[in-house]
């Protein structure tokens, strides 16, 4: 069960929520979007209470928040192109009974181009690699022109090349937009250099909150991953690597 007494994220801040599987990271993100209901307490996003709120006000709030879920919604039956998937981000903002106009599609095409997906715009989404699909979902979130970006393990199930591509992309997005970013991950390697605050969750409770260089130490790595791993830090990038004989 997720139990967070108080957590505030400032505008323009990049918060990474780190923790092992089952720590409650994804549940926290879903509570912020109203996709999961908290048993008690209050979640406020962009100054507004997520619950209780009417369907319309919750939808208005969600339109201001870009969300990249952990699970890729791709199966061979999906007939949508990359451009159409990215356009889902404009769908809520456009409102009912109004088709997406030229300005909406220009925003979609702009973000596809900025994320290096321009040449794949008319390609079937289901035929993309996992990394390209994840990029498309980030484009979908960005075309909402979000004030807050919520990313739930955006590097999950990706190889090292694509993990680094996504980390570099997040770094660039933050530099270009200055958006508030809340990123959930369970690997140290997925923490982008722009992250200046790290929250560690364990069994649903925060166990550390602060700058990555102060939070991440040997004791924390032991607590999170066991004594067989040790911390490597290079500038603002971190990794957990096998400790060798002395750490075993």
């Amino acid at each position: 069960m997720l139990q967070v007494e108080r957590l505030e994220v400032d505008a323009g801040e990049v918060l990474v929520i780190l923790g092992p599987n089952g720590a409650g990271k994804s549940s926290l993100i879903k509570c912020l979007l109203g996709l999961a209901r908290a048993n008690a307490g209050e979640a406020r996003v962009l100054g507004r209470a997520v619950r209780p709120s009417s369907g319309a006000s919750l939808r208005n709030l969600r339109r201001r928040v870009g969300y990249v879920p952990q699970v890729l919604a791709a199966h061979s039956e999906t007939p949508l192109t990359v451009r159409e998937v990215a356009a889902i981000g404009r769908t809520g903002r456009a409102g009912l009974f109004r088709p997406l106009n030229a300005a909406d599609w220009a925003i979609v095409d702009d973000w596809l181009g900025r994320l290096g997906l321009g040449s794949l715009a008319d390609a079937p989404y289901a035929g993309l690699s996992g990394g390209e699909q994840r990029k498309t979902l980030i484009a979908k979130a960005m075309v909402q022109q979000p004030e807050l970006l919520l990313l739930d393990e955006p590097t999950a199930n990706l190889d090292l090349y694509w993990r680094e591509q996504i980390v570099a992309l997040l770094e660039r997005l933050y530099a270009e937009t200055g958006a508030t970013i809340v990123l959930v991950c369970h690997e140290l390697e997925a923490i982008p250099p722009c992250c200046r605050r790290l929250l560690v969750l364990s069994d649903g409770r925060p166990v550390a909150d602060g700058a990555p260089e102060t939070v991440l130490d040997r004791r924390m790595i032991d607590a999170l991953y066991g004594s067989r791993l040790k911390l490597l830090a290079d500038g603002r990038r971190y990794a957990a690597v096998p400790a060798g004989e002395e750490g075993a």
Partner: protein
Amino acid sequence: MDLLFWLPVICCGALAGASTGLLGAYIVGMRIPFLGICVSHAALAGAVFGGLFGLAGPWLLLPALAGAVIAALLLGMLDPESTRVDSNVLMGILFSLTLGLAFLGLGVYDIRGISKNDILNLLWGNLNFCRWSDFYLMVTAAVLEIIVIAAFYKELRAILFSRVHAAAAGVPVSLVWTAFLILTSVVLTVNFQTVGGLMIYSLLTNPAVAAFLLVKGYGRALALSAVFGLLSGLGGFLLAKATDLPTGAMIVILSSLIVALAWAISASRSRAGR
């Protein structure tokens, strides 16, 4: 062939194919093929209880529609995210419940000695018996289908991809999803009672599968699925008349052949692309 006599049959076959093929693009894309079976048995339960309350003949369509729409509303209210149960499982539960209710009602028919022919005719119609009155009913359902799809075109595109993604982007998923389920229940119930269940089940999946194999893009997939449905309905009827074989079976076989052909084209394209 007496064209004047068979013309309403030809029109009904073509329209059933096109309207069901169009709907099938969403049903296959959302991976909910069980919806057709769920809706048809809810309509059966509605018709059975309508008959017990004294309705007969074409009037049984009204309780059948009510049963299908109630099932659609229940499915709309049961959100897989909050219930933590997959949509297809929810449909399976609802299907068994409505089937149980239908058998319960049919048991009462036996006790009271009431004929069940009207009920069975309503749910398992035959294309060869379609008249212009059936065609007008199907046109009404098809117009409703076009209005709903046009009104929620972009929202349905988002939901087709993922209901979670659509909801997270601020799309009114509950409203659009419920509207889609009601539309499905109306279109399928009307088509079941005119052209028959076997044909509808095949038209609900085969044209969409073939379309998805050949084209990518939402609008193109919808259009091609409707065209394949129309070709199956029309071509199946003409083949049946030419060979003097059963119409429903020929439509099902033709739509299956279209899938096989689409698969062969798709496979040869993949090989050429390597």
